């Protein structure tokens, strides 16, 4: 009898746990519905590119963002600027250096709500062997089958040594690179 009670109690606890999971849920990215763009400028004209392969993992509760975390890994070698000559060039040491640094990463250290459905993830971007603090603002749109986070930020390519040597000058290739993302997520598990 005592054993049965204990079992029942345990079951009840587990059941309650299932109904009210830890506040921050784990989210997994749906690659098909997600896009990560980087928009450089060439002679003051937008020159867009994409990272075809990347992954975002998120622990997040839109109502209680404290304690949330965002981790993004980017396969730098999947960059595509849709210009044959440029795609060949950005592999090299002066630009992304595919051989030396095939992957980039963002890890949040702090995530908070700014207003309404807008949030800000502060963290560190590791790119081409350089770690720099960046702020990633995003909006959160929840739906029945998952959620979408969207946002954009501006990164200084020079801070990461993207465009080395004579390419560091910003008259021809601008200093600012806009990063735009749209990530479709569904709850993991």
């Amino acid at each position, binding site marked *: 009898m005592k054993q049965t009670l204990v079992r029942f109690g345990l079951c009840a606890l587990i059941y309650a746990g299932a109904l009210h999971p830890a506040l921050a849920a784990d989210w997994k990215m749906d690659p098909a519905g997600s896009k990560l763009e980087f928009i450089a400028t060439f*002679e003051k004209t937008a020159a867009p590119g994409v990272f075809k392969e990347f992954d975002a993992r998120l622990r997040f509760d839109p109502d209680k963002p404290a304690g949330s975390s965002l981790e993004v890994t980017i396969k730098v070698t999947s960059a595509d600027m849709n210009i044959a000559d440029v795609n060949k060039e950005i592999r090299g040491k002066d630009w992304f250096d595919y051989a030396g640094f095939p992957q980039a990463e963002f890890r949040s250290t702090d995530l908070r709500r700014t207003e309404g459905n807008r949030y800000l993830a502060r963290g560190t971007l590791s790119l081409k062997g350089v770690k720099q603090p960046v702020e990633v603002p995003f909006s959160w749109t929840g739906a029945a089958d998952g959620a979408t986070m969207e946002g954009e930020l501006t990164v200084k390519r020079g801070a990461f040594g993207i465009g080395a040597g004579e390419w560091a000058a910003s008259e*021809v290739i601008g200093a600012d690179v806009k990063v735009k993302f749209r990530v479709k997520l569904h709850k993991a598990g």
Partner: protein
Amino acid sequence: MLRNDADFWGAPAKLFHWVMAALILAQIVLGVMAASWRLSPTKLNLFFWHKSTGMLILLLVALRLLWRLANRAPALPEGMPVWERAAAQLSHGLLYVLMIALPVTGWIVNSASNIPFRIFWLIPLPAIVAPDKATADPVALVHGGLVALLALVLVAHIGAALRHHFVKRNAVLVRMLPGKWRT
């Protein structure tokens, strides 16, 4: 005197001729430098100015053709042999064709290469063909071939003008010079 007459070019025709002459020479120099420069920001800048100048030339040649169609060209000197008349007509026709074909092939190369470009940083140049390296490479060759042809025709054009002036001693060259040249 704005309009051309039987003997003289009007001021707009002269202005078109000399402005475009200067632009075309600069354009050839820019193009050769851009194509041969090692990959660097300087090369990209050379291409930027080459493309911008090319689109300016295309606009000017369109206006110039309209003006030319609305105005008669002064007559060629009397007694010019038939072959010279034919050569004059052919070379002038070729110059107009090349002044259009060179910017247009350049535009095709830029579109096919999918390179974002705004003329003089201002006007976005729309694509006239879909991005495709298989288009860009052969058309770039054609563009280069047309430049070689242009260089030949220009040598004939300038040579003929000098011959008219110094050998045949007629007014063909001076009547294109700025100012009033009544001989």
